[in-house]
């Protein structure tokens, strides 16, 4: 199990379009990835879950990858979050 913390800087927070892209990527990975905020933790493969985190700009997100190629999966998800720009 590997973990990394990333801050979402996109001004509009985690809205539907980037959340959709994130979920699509998470579903394609060979292991389980979870996202956690100070409030709760959800599976990165669940659109309802990701949206329900209600992530606003500036929120710290802890990404955890478990199983499969953990390091690569973690990297992929963290990069996607860090690169959300709108």
């Amino acid at each position, binding site marked *: 199990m590997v973990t990394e913390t990333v801050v979402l800087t996109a*001004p509009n927070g985690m809205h539907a379009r980037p959340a959709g892209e994130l979920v699509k990527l998470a579903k394609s990975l060979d292991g389980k990835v979870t996202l956690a905020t100070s409030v709760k933790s959800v*599976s990165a493969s*669940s*659109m*309802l*879950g990701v949206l*329900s985190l*209600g992530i606003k*700009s500036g929120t710290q997100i802890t990404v955890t990858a478990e199983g499969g190629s953990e390091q690569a999966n973690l990297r992929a998800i963290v990069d996607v979050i860090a690169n959300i*720009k709108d």
Partner: protein
Amino acid sequence: MKLLSTSVRASEGIAVGRAFVVRRTKSSINREKGSAESEKSLFATALAASREQIAHLAENSDIFAAHLEIIDDEMIVDSVETAINEGCSAEDAVSSSCEQIVSMFEAMDDEYLAARAADVKDIFARISQNLAGGVINPFEGVENGDIVVDRELFPSDMALLDFSKIRGFVTAEGSTTSHVCIMARNLSLPAVVGLGDASAEITTGDRLIIDGAEGLVIVNPDEYTLNDYLTRGLNYQALKQEQQAVANCEIFDGDRRVYVFANAGSVEDVERAIASGADGIGLFRSEFVYMQSSQEPTEDKQYEIYAAAARACNGKPLIIRTLDIGGDKAVPYLDFPKEENPFLGWRAIRISLDRVDMFCRQLRAILRASTDGDVRVMFPMVVCVDELRDAKYYLEQCKRELEQGGVAFNPNIKVGVMIETPASVFIADSLAAECDFFSIGTNDLIQYIMAADRANVKVSKLYNPYSDAVLRAVQSVILAAQNANIECGMCGELASDNLATERLLTMGLDEFSVNVGSIAKIKYELNKLTTK
């Protein structure tokens, strides 16, 4: 006779009919709860049946295409199966999961996400019904000419309802942007939503009058009221039909083309306007792009929105007004000083020319979008030629930057001035010599000319669009435009007033930019005036 009313404006029109109050009875099958495994398999069967139904509906509906994404979400399966493991029957597990997920979304302070609660409820209701043996049609018993009354209407209901039978909707919940309102407007059915608990006063069989424009429901009206509304309804329909018949036509006054444009505050407005017959967008208020977020929108974000609006115009003109804030509109990321006289203060082009970096981000975004359609740019609140020259200087600078970066744009983008200050009226000839079009913003112009705030009831009678001073100003601006051979439009509310149409046409106005709801009305008026 009872009167119920709401301030929500859902879908205009008048209807008289019998109330059909929808009963949402929960059907259930009496059975012994089985093992966790067998409960899970019952749920899996109901889920599969639901998925199949939604996939079928999704073939021609974006709403159901979105439901198809949601129903396969692992959160739904996880939360139902967890409840079953804890000892629930499949039915109880579905309803408790639904409550849990819905409350999660309803609690969000984001309108888009809060609206997803309705989608989740709809999907879970379908799964519950499939568990109980199949989808129930809650509209069994709807008769021809009924008005459907419900707490809340869902997308799935829309798929079960025979719209040709019904005359309108009344709901307790909902806002202007609910699915039911959008659907009602698309079908031109009158609707009253957001009545709250007052809707409980209606029972099936009551005679109802609904007036969507007023947000009014009259239950069991007396004969006088009924006859009055029957006549109003007929007149309304006849007029609407006549107006609709000319909504898409091109208007010519002799050889001169006269355009009916629309004012828009979002990309959805643009779509609605073009679908309603607008010849273009005469005022795209870019403020909304700035006001919906806590930070200044990036150039890319702005470009996306402007380009989407341009594409929605289908080649018709899109006039983007650069940021017009200040006065009574503020944004958190600009440090607005407290002003004694905000309407005579730091606003519109004055801010843009002070915050050049921000202004250039907007201009570059507009320029980039100019390859997606007939995009034009317009500057608000101009009071001297230098302001226009400065704004054009920055526009040219942005063009050079884009050119150097190899980014495509329309080098001949048209530049316009919004005429909304007395100063710009007096120097209209000088401004006309250096721009491509005018648009008269009557809302501010009238209050500046008459020195009267229309929100102040003590002086609002002075705020008179038909006063000599205002009409002479409008006429002189149009003449200045004609002398310089440029087009002159009007985007204030006066343009949407059909009592002013004849006068403005005679003055030589080329373009009427009106509220989306007034397009057909003004086209109808212009058509009548130009073809007689």
